[in-house]
């Protein structure tokens, strides 16, 4: 079996999906923060610009417009960090004070790019974006206040980087974790698959080791093992039956072969005819075994249920009683019946007839000379119950479950005639009718009890 790599494991694929989801989520989160921070910083800048502008205009109103130029110069000097840039144009458009380029001269909000401000002794190379706020004063001069927003841009850029790296980091971590967990899973699953492979290769007694890691996995392996147990039991049964068929048919066929061989030496036509009849009877015996096997198979498959009808079980049993009474008498056994009249069950009259015939034949065959066989039918608590009992050697309690198996015979009855299928057929027919078959000790002898479902239940069952 090809070994799977951790990349192909379900755990890894799950981790991959999670990583993608995490990455997308992280990106969205940081992007949202970015937007919120940028907007907040933008608002703060705008408010500061408006404040500065109002402050200057307030000064101008208090001390006269001419002082404004002086004030700007003074503020340019005081505010060392120089967050603000200024421009003051007189009504004629001439620069009075400030360091913003003349292009910034307009009322309201604006944005422009200027050379980066540096200390006088440092070289200036970069450009910075400046946000401006301009107002036209009462005398017609224009005052513009500006502020460098490159901090904001930097913040934005930085946040974008964080987003990228954190997304990448989370993805890599998730993938690594997935690979690790996938590996663990694979190792455990491999053990299970190896066990299954061994079982498929013929180690039928092997079982699947527990996966561990959770109740659901334990349940899975437990069910797998139960399934294997069941399959093995079925296979064993099947093997047993085929072996039994082969064995049980080989004996009569072998006998037949000897028989035919010895027939070659017969010259007397009458003896030959007799021998042929014998051989035919032996073939019929083998055919009867096949027939019974097929029948059991069909009945176990549920054949016949479609044709179920109301059957007068009393009449069926009366008929079986009448049919076998003389045979029992001739064999030196007594056979009596106590049958309550007109009890009905749902079923197949032919199969039910065969069921009771088989039980009686069984009793006739196994109970010795002078045995008493009895058949009863009564309604017990609303359930039609039939019993067939004898006072023969009976069947030991421990064997009750096994005698209904195909070809099963007690050691004591190995030498008697019969296919070893009679009770199997009885069990199959009982099962088809939903009837409960019970074997009991009749001390001495065997008592077979058959309890049919009462009508109510049998209707529900259909």
């Amino acid at each position: 079996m090809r070994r799977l790599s951790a990349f192909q494991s379900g755990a890894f694929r799950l981790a991959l999906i999670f990583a993608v989801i995490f990455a997308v989520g992280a990106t969205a989160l940081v992007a949202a923060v970015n937007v919120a921070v940028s907007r907040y910083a933008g608002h703060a800048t705008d408010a500061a610009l408006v404040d500065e502008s109002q402050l200057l205009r307030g000064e101008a109103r208090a001390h006269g417009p001419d002082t404004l130029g002086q004030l700007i110069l003074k503020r340019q000097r005081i505010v060392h960090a120089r967050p603000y840039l200024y421009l003051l144009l007189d009504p004629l458009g001439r620069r009075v004070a400030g360091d913003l380029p003349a292009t910034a001269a307009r009322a309201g909000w604006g944005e422009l790019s200027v050379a980066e401000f540096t200390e006088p002794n440092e070289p200036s190379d970069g450009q910075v974006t400046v946000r401006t706020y301009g107002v036209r004063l009462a005398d017609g001069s224009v005052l513009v206040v500006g502020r460098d927003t490159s901090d904001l841009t930097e913040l934005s850029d930085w946040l974008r980087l964080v987003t990228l790296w954190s997304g990448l980091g989370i993805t890599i971590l998730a993938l690594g974790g997935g690979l690790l967990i996938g590996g663990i899973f694979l190792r455990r699953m491999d053990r299970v698959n190896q066990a299954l492979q061994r079982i498929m290769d013929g180690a039928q007694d092997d079982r699947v080791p527990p996966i561990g890691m959770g109740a659901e996995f334990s349940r899975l392996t437990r069910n797998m093992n139960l399934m294997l147990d069941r399959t093995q039991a079925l296979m064993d049964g099947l093997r047993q039956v085929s072996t039994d068929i082969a064995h049980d048919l080989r004996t009569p066929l072998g006998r037949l072969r000897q028989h035919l061989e010895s027939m070659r030496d017969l010259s007397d036509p009458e003896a030959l005819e007799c021998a042929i009849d014998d051989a035919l009877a032996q073939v019929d015996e083998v055919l009867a075994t096949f027939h019974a096997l097929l029948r059991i198979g069909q009945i176990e498959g549920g054949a016949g249920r479609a044709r179920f009808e109301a059957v007068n079980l009393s009449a069926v049993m009366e008929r079986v009683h009448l049919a076998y009474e003389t045979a029992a008498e001739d064999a030196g056994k007594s056979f009596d019946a106590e049958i309550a009249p007109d009890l009905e069950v749902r079923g197949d009259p032919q199969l039910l007839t065969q069921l009771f015939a088989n039980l009686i034949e069984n009793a006739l065959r196994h109970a010795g000379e002078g045995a008493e066989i009895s058949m009863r039918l009564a309604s017990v608590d609303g359930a039609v119950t039939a019993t067939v009992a004898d006072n023969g050697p009976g069947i030991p309690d421990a064997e009750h479950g096994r005698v209904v198996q195909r070809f099963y015979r007690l050691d004591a009855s190995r030498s008697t005639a019969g296919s070893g299928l009679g009770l199997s057929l009885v069990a199959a027919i009982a099962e088809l009718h939903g009837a409960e078959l019970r074997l009991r000790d009749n001390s001495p002898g065997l008592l077979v009890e058959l309890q049919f479902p009462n009508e109510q239940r049998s209707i529900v069952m259909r």
Partner: protein
Amino acid sequence: MALKILLLEDDQQTSAFIEKGLRAAGHVVDACATGRDAIFHATDGAYAVLIIDRMVPSVDGLAVLKALRITGVKTPAIFLTAMDGVEDRVEGLEAGADDYLVKPFSMSELLARIAALARRPHLAQAPTIIRVGDLEIDLLKRNATRAGRAIELQAQEFKLLEYLMRHAGQVVTRTMLLENVWSFHFDPQTNIIEGHVSRLRAKIDRGFDSDMIKTVRGAGYMIDAPT
């Protein structure tokens, strides 16, 4: 009694075996291997009995018989089949078969059933009294007499005697008795017929020097007027 019989059977070996057996018994046989041929022949020729294998190519036996019954062909028919399912027999009879024989079967069984079927039309007259020699049964009064002397019979014994007498002069097999007298459509492993027949024989033949019920070795029983 020579009968004209139509045989539908696709397996050559089986067909040859059956044909040979029927001819040896003095019957005239037309054999065909497909359902279509069988329908053609059966609607055309006047046959006494149809023997139809259930599983044949083109049109299967069941369909052949249904088609024949629909077109009004009432010739008695026996189904031959390897299928002995619980429901197969009922299906066969519902399709219009008069008898049903599961393979493998013995030739004597088939011959006995053919004879029984060919006799059927006479039953339509539904006699209430059947006579064989000096033995007589009254189906209405359900009593039996031999040479005017009453014979006490139980219900099953009467049924057995009635069946034998209806087929007087014909061989009646064990399975035919099981099916028709006891409604046993399976083969019991105990020989239950023998006991019943010997009891019946004792009642009928006691006090008379001729036996009416004869055992036909390897085949079954036959009731006949003593000669």
